[in-house]
């Protein structure tokens, strides 16, 4: 193990500048800048197709040719004999560049290339999705000839190829710039298309044994994932399954790649674009929402170099129809004779306030705001609970959670500001993932980790997990194999070995070189799933303290980090202030103008139990899906038993079915707000669509008014100000104490049993993906993963349908025998179509399940 004690100064070295001349102007740019980038900095646009700032130079399209002259050894500037591709050549001192503006040679070269690109291009611009925003169209106007001399036969292809249910390829429109293939190889690492054939027959093609000749179905790059819908095969012979394929549509400089959901739906010039932030995970990716007459037609990646660069996940891109689904709630509803009926806001608010006041008197109101709130909403919910309802029975976590986690969040995360950033991941010598499958649970984080692993830093990625996912292999990551529930053991033994101490004999095998984790700049990324592994958070904290590695917590949902800041946890007030601390309470009481109850409240499980037993008189529920809770059946029973339930929802749900009053709230696209992403960065967005729908904070404000409390959250501006009042000074008192969670004894796995491992896939049965059939087709098919030995023990082989069961219920899915998986463990996707683990089995990760061979056999799953 090497620990560098003399850390090199972190001050940025002065950037070395190179001075050269472009179109007669002397310009200085950082050394190593490509001519085409330097030209941009000088305000000179050189036409291009294959060039993309985030992809390695290719020099394939030749559209960016310029004339270059270089000084020779004596300093005489001599022109190079041929025009040069400005996208592949870096500037040099004394270089003289002449673009199309000052060089007839460059201008003719560009016009010549443009004519060649256009000659085989179809004239279907009027029906092409790209028409109107097409780099080929635009640059043909700016740098092309007015007419064509081509009178011969054009190259044609049958149209189009469906690469997946979501992505279509029209080959005759393709200019073979290779942006898409380079993206899928360099950025996402899940190459699904490749160049095939040669010369004029060269084309972007899907996997074809006759052409590409790869070993079919090889598993050398991690386990096979099969999409639900029809898909072509990727370059490794596996069915194409990518979470990032939509980016290829966006970077295609022509209309060759299109998305099925948007194809032929709109003209770019009819669209209004609004910048926004994606709501599907905690990365806070910048997006652009394109809408027309109040309807969202598509979403694109925004550009934010510090967060998502120019990439987004397919979920962030395509999963937007949920916000305008037919089951949107449009008016307040009140329950009358057991049925919900529309009501006026006035009536609904009066009934809600009266019911809440009653419930408050008969034991109190439990508050379950859910994890998808904006920061403004989260603060309003927190304040509503503490002031209007005078309770600390508030918990945003609609998932597996623990007291240890709540303490960890208060101790480490809350009020910590911007900690580890995406940029840090790219530069870190090593990153340890625990309780986190980055590609599935925080997609853009995966891209940054892969960039670090494949880039200059050569980030070593380690993952404590039961098997090496394809995502981990694509980051060249190392698996630290752990059965669910034993993560703490790995963390503790890493702590011991990295501190140079001897390991106990029964520690997990550590013939893996993990010393990079002790280097300065190493990062530990902890996922929310660690809450299900007793002692996990404690051990992660211990490792960070022992090695100096920085720690970041990555929840799945967009609102959870903001919720931690707002105090949507039973023991936490805004800014990391402990409920139990009188001084902390006093500060918040001053900001909010009301006394704050001093006793830490119940967590989600506690609230549900108290509702079921009648200890609590009622509940306020935000965006919570009961099926997401560890025991959905118990949650349903609890809400059924609850004296009074108010639900704030966008669409009808299992909660609204059980609510006495339903207050409709606006989805993100119809309101302004901000998310606090996992980095701690505030990601603000405006309302993309005009709407009369009210955001949560506004609804809570008027509801509080009925209860005689001023929530100071009537408008976004007031809500912001109200947040600021709690942030005037950072909390410098005692933080929430970390709880010393101890690992639970591993369960004894009996014959026919296995320990359940499970996490959510990026694309699954979540309601946020409702209404997007094309995207749904690219979700992974549920399988039960197990090692060959485990499968052998159950008498099943790869592809056999197995029944995974608990006393509560059973799930039938094909078995997928997975290399190097921890024995005695079976993995299921947590909430995929046909595989709802919490709901059907009532089980969570670490629980014992029974596995048997099912009678039927699914032949096509092989």
């Amino acid at each position, binding site marked *: 193990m090497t620990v560098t004690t003399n850390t090199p100064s972190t001050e940025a070295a002065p950037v070395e500048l190179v001075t050269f001349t472009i179109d007669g102007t002397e310009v200085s740019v950082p050394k190593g800048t490509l001519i085409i980038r330097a030209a941009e900095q000088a305000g000179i646009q050189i036409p291009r197709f294959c060039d993309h700032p985030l992809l390695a130079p290719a020099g394939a399209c030749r559209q960016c040719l310029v004339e270059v002259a270089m000084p020779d050894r004596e300093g005489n500037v001599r022109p190079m004999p041929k025009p040069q591709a400005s996208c592949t050549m870096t500037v040099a001192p004394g270089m003289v560049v002449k673009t199309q503006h000052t060089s007839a040679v460059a201008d003719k070269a560009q016009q010549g290339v443009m004519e060649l690109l256009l000659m085989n291009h179809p004239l279907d611009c009027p029906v092409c999705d790209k028409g109107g925003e097409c780099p080929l169209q635009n640059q043909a106007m700016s740098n092309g000839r007015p007419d064509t001399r081509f009178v011969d036969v054009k190259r044609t292809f049958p149209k189009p190829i469906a690469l997946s249910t979501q992505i279509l390829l029209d080959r005759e429109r393709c200019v073979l710039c290779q942006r898409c293939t380079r993206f899928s190889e360099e950025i996402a690492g899940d190459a699904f298309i490749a160049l095939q054939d040669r010369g004029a027959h*060269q084309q972007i093609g899907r996997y074809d044994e006759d052409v590409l000749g790869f070993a079919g179905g090889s598993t050398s790059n991690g386990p096979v994932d099969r999409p639900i819908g029809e898909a072509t095969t990727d370059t490794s012979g596996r069915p194409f399954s990518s979470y990032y394929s939509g980016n290829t549509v966006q970077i295609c400089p022509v209309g060759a790649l299109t998305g099925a959901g948007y194809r032929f739906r709109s003209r770019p010039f009819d669209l209004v674009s609004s910048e926004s932030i994606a709501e599907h995970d905690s990365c806070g990716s910048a997006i652009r929402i394109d809408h027309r007459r109040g309807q969202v037609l598509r979403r694109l990646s925004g550009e934010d170099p510090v967060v998502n660069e120019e990439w987004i996940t397919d979920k962030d891109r395509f999963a937007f129809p949920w916000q305008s689904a037919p089951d949107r709630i449009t008016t307040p509803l009140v329950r009358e004779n057991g049925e919900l009926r529309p009501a006026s806001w006035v009536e609904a608010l009066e009934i809600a306030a009266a019911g809440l006041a009653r419930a408050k008197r008969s034991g109190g109101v439990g508050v379950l705001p859910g994890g998808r709130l904006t920061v403004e909403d989260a603060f309003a919910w927190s304040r509503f609970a503490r002031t209007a309802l005078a309770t600390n029975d508030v918990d945003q976590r609609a998932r597996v959670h623990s007291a240890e986690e709540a303490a960890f969040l208060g101790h480490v995360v809350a009020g910590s500001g911007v900690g580890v950033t995406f940029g840090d991941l790219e530069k870190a010598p090593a990153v340890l993932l625990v309780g986190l499958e980055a590609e599935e649970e925080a997609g853009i984080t995966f891209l940054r980790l892969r960039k670090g692993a494949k880039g200059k830093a050569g980030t070593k990625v380690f993952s404590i997990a039961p098997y090496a996912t394809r995502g981990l292999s694509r980051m060249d990551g190392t698996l630290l194999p752990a059965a669910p529930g034993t993560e703490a053991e790995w963390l503790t033994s890493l702590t011991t070995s990295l501190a140079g101490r001897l390991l106990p004999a029964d520690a997990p095998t550590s013939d893996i070189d993990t010393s990079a984790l002790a280097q300065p700049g190493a990062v530990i990324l902890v996922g929310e799933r660690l809450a299900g592994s007793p002692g996990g958070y404690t051990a992660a904290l211990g490792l960070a303290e022992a090695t100096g590695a920085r720690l970041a917590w990555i929840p799945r949902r967009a609102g959870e980090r903001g919720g931690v800041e707002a105090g949507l946890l039973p023991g936490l007030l805004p800014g990391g202030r402990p409920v139990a601390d009188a001084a902390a309470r006093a500060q918040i009481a001053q900001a909010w103008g009301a006394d704050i109850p001093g006793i830490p409240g119940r967590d989600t499980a506690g609230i549900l139990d108290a509702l079921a037993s009648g200890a609590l008189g009622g509940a306020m529920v935000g965006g919570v899906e009961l099926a997401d809770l560890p025991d959905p059946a118990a949650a349903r029973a609890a809400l059924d038993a609850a004296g009074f339930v108010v639900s704030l929802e966008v669409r009808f749900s299992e909660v609204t079915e059980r609510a006495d009053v339903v207050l409709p709230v606006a989805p993100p696209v119809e309101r302004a707000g901000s998310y606090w992403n996992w980095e701690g960065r505030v990601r603000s967005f405006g309302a993309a669509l005009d709407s009369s729908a009210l955001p949560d904070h506004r609804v809570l404000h008027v509801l509080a008014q009925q209860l005689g409390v001023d929530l100071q959250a009537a408008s976004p501006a007031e809500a912001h100000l109200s947040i600021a009042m709690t942030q005037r000074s950072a909390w410098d008192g005692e933080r929430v104490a970390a709880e010393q969670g101890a690992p639970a004894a591993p369960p004894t796995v009996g014959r026919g049993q296995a320990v359940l491992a499970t996490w959510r896939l990026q694309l699954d049965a979540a309601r946020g993906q409702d209404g997007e059939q094309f995207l749904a087709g690219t979700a992974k098919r549920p399988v039960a993963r197990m090692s060959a030995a485990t499968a052998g023990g159950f008498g099943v082989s790869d592809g056999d349908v197995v029944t995974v069961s608990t006393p509560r219920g059973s799930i039938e899915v094909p078995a997928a025998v997975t290399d190097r998986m921890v024995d005695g463990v079976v993995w299921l996707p947590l909430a995929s179509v046909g595989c709802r683990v919490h709901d059907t089995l009532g089980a969570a990760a670490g629980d014992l399940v029974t596995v048997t061979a099912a009678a039927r056999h699914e032949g096509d799953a092989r």
Partner: protein
Amino acid sequence: MNLTPVLTDTWDKDHSWRLATYEGAGGYAGLKKALTMEPADLVQAVKDSGLRGRGGAGFPTGMKWGFLPPPDGGPRYLVVNADESEPGTCKDIPLMLASPQHLIEGVAITSYAIGCDHAFIYVRGEVLHVYRRLLNAVEEAYEAGYLGKNIQGSGFDLDVTVHAGAGAYICGEETALLDSLEGLRGQPRLKPPFPAVAGLYARPTVVNNVESIASVPAIVAKGADWFSSMGTEKSQGHGLFSLSGHVTRPGQYEAPLGITLRELLDLAGGVRAGHELKFWTPGGSSTPIFTQDHLDVPLDYESVGAAGSMLGTRALQIFDESVCVVRAVSRWTDFYAHESCGKCTPCREGTYWLKQVLHRIEAGEGQDSDLDLLLDLCDNILGRAFCALGDGATSPITSSVQLFRAEYQAHIDGHGCPFDPSASALFPYTPKTTSPGAALVGAVGAGTGGHR
């Protein structure tokens, strides 16, 4: 000027390809001598000899070796480019067929000189017989201790892998060759980094032509001065001149650089009896064509360049007056369109277009504007493509339109080809489409074209 048989010396011997035949003629003296020398001295000797790349570009071989960075303990590779595919070029394949040990010995010496212990020979896949012969030659060399571990007791180890390509002209481009050798799609790489810095498997690599490497043993055995005594001041040494087409005795003529076609034709018995020279290529189809006017151009790098073409691979294709220049150029263009790798726009789309225009002209459907279109398209391809393939595709078109514009125009004006293709054939040949064109030579306005 006389012939200087060095590489071709033993081609007429019984079983010329056997190691024993090669050793009997003094083979492997160069390697034995080289193994007693310092590698740096070997590089210097090749520099001193003036040997220039025989694959066409003529880059000084010793200087290329010198570009390798200092050893860093990691592997360094020699890759022999034996992917001879240029139309008209036929020197490396006969050499490897008749006397493969020249190449193997050259590989051993070069590898020793550059510090390589694993060399690759990338052979054009279509020539299966040559591939087999090379495999056998390598096996013989291993058995005789010229390859393998501790070669000739020197402590120098060398493995040689013979790899067959899959039939792509582009893989003769050195970086496309390296990608192909690595199992990737054969398309040229972006340079820099150059192969000398990051070549095969991103390690320092020398890529040399077969004839260049095969010339090394004699340079080592007989000395740089012996080699540089042949040829001209700047184009030194011997080279294979491949005469083909309408020539009485086609074949390989090994002679000092600087010999003229007139001298070579004398040695080869002249142009086909009863015919006269119309045009010829000095170095394969990628080099601008010459005519009778260039019979006395010394065939060295500088003189051919000064006359407006390139020495290339010294593939002298001789065409007599029976040949339609439009037809010949059209066939070459078909080749380039077929072999363009597709990576860059000018070559991929340009050759596709050129081919169609030439076919139109040949079929009598050309327009007056087509000749200027051809020249302008060539101007838009030459120097704009990613690698030299696109440049090569333009050479025959540009040069033939310059030299034979009237003949092109006659195809357009006459709505067909005025030539009889069977008259140029050296064997009984019936055009695939019968047409009156051949019978109506000179009959302007015959309507339909000649052969189509």
